[in-house]
């Protein structure tokens, strides 16, 4: 079969390439539910896969998409699951949400900056709630015990706090 002379070349790993794409892959893995250490590990594996089976170079955004798909595949292979709630999401939705908030390469930090500001504006109790849930990874029951709340109260407080944060971030990003 004749070769198409205009077919794109394959991607090669270089300092510059790694610099451009590593943050995006890392963040995508965190988005899918990987711990920092695991995300770090899998980042390396993603690049290794790329070295072994380099994709066609169709531009940064397309390559970033390829890296994210590879990352997801590796994460699922390792954990057999994703962040709770994401198992049923389509690849297209995952990618679309990620690109919307983190940019085509996943390296746009404006969402994190906005969120950080919004967290700062929460009251002490809400911050405490988030800290227990997301930093200390406490269960709702443990949080309820610590904060003297009902378990359902923790659930609804978390839901309200996240909704508040989401609205705050959206406002900041749109402004």
């Amino acid at each position, binding site marked *: 079969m004749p070769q198409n002379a205009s077919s794109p070349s394959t991607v090669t790993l*270089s*300092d510059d390439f*790694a*610099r451009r794409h*590593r*943050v995006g892959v890392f*963040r995508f893995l*965190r*988005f*899918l*539910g990987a711990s*920092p*250490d*695991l995300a*770090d*590990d899998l*980042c*390396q*594996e993603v690049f*290794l896969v790329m*070295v072994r089976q380099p994709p066609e170079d169709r531009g940064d955004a397309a390559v970033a998409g390829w890296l994210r798909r590879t990352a997801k595949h590796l994460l699922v292979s*390792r954990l057999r699951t994703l*962040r709770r*709630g*994401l198992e*049923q*999401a389509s690849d297209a*939705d*995952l990618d*679309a*949400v*990620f690109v919307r*908030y983190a940019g085509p390469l996943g390296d746009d930090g404006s*969402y*994190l900056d906005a*969120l*950080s500001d919004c*967290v700062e504006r929460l009251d*002490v109790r809400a911050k*405490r709630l*988030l*800290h227990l849930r*997301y*930093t200390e990874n406490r269960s709702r029951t443990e949080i309820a015990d*610590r*904060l*003297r709340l009902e378990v359902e109260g923790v659930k609804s407080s978390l839901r309200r706090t*996240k909704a508040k*944060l*989401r609205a705050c*971030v959206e406002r900041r990003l749109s402004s």
Partner: protein
Amino acid sequence: MSRTEVEMAFLESALEQVLESRAADVPRSDDRRRNASSRRAFAPIAAALAVAVVGAIWALGTDEFPAGEHASPGSEQTFDPDFKSLVSPSSLDELRAFLQRVDRAQARVNLARLREGVTVPLRVVGEPDAPVLELPWSTVEREALLAAFVDDDASQGYVADGSHQDLPNRVEFALGDGRYFALDVVFVASSGQWIIGSGRVGMRFAHDLDAWLARIHAAAEPLARSKGVFHPAMLPFEASTNLPTSLRLHEFARSDLSALGSLASATRLDLRYSPGLHDGSVVRAGELASLRELKLDAHRTHGDLLRAVADAAPRLTTLLLLPRDQAYWSVSASGGGSRETRTEFELDALSRWPGLQHLATTFGELDAKDLSVVCGLRELRTWSASGCRLRDGIGRVERLASLEELYLQDCEGLRDRDFAAIAKCASLQRLDLAGSRNAAISAESVRALAASESLHRLDLSGWFRREAADQASAWPPAWRGAIESLLGSSSLRWLALVGCDALTLDDVRLVAATGSLDVVVLGDNGPLDIDVASSVLLDARPGMTVIID
């Protein structure tokens, strides 16, 4: 699943990252400050370890050697986000020169050009006169991968669990009497062509050098002609190949017990992760003659073991019976201890160490006999009985004239009269009673503590809770009076009231107005607005430190 749900999941992941960075920036509680301080103190060592192992490959990998503590290649030390240090050396000299130039913890080395025709010097660590062998890189790499993949969780050259914080700060290598040796396992994670990470797999031991060598020979045959392990030149620890004096024998197996005989020079041992060693028959008299500090698993220790240890290690000054993964004196059930499996320690052997200065007997059942032995340790300066059930109270603790720190966190069985005894400890400076409040304790207990002239740090976290106090008036009058007495003590400088959800602003004002406190620790105080409480304290006492846990 809707797009909105995916967006909320994105928010959650971003929240985790934001909160992680905040937690790293602003450690809030006292313990976290200590943790942070510990991490900072350890950072150069961890970095040195990471630096040490890049480029180092160890030709060992047999299941005879129990896996040691595992160090995951942390992102700060093993991943170069910019790949600034990417090279493809064609010779070891070139590699060495490169490793000298760059931050080796960040180095990425493409091995492809090195694999063919390059040999690596092989020598016995700690025996400078041993013959240096030349081993082909390809053979070495195979062995290195074996070493790297000993952990089931390892994949693509990574060992997945553990943390740098748990690493002991020793990297010395030793060759013992020719039969026993302890050495530090390092690995370079490689996946065919790339060094993709590096780390310290852990401390490993072997007692049968010949068997170990036979495996090496079989693996590297026909070129491995003699004994040895190797590491490349120019590694930081080359200059200090002393006998180890601090070891953690993780997963040390019964079959390796004879190796203990080579540890006569060890001064500190942590055997909590070595279930095979919690048996009185495993140590022999005088075998650990230099040992000063010993950590044993609180849930496995019993009288026979303690008596055997007393024979083996007569010069012990620190004995810590702690649950696994507990690094501090104040332990908690959430940190690995279990009240459901409290241990009958049988502490009679402690009398064999009259010079014992630091003791932890956590998560045990302590009766009058045990307490009598402990209270006879006249040199004792620190004692933690956290998590214990005290069947007969705290005993005659006032006899411990040297006792400076007493930890009774989450204890059961304290009674009023115990506090009078505690207050009589002439040297007691620090008392941790967090979570130990019970129905048998009245306000008189706190009033009794006010009699102590030396106590300057007191943790009453979890004592004043809504179900136990009169909500209308916060602390009931008796308690309020007792607290006033305590705060009137001129010695008290530090007070923790975390988790006291009955605390009101009036109580905080009382704390602010009375006494000579320098530090107040609050947190989880129910409806109390912590910001307002902090303001009240700081307004009243500008020099005060308020810690929000």
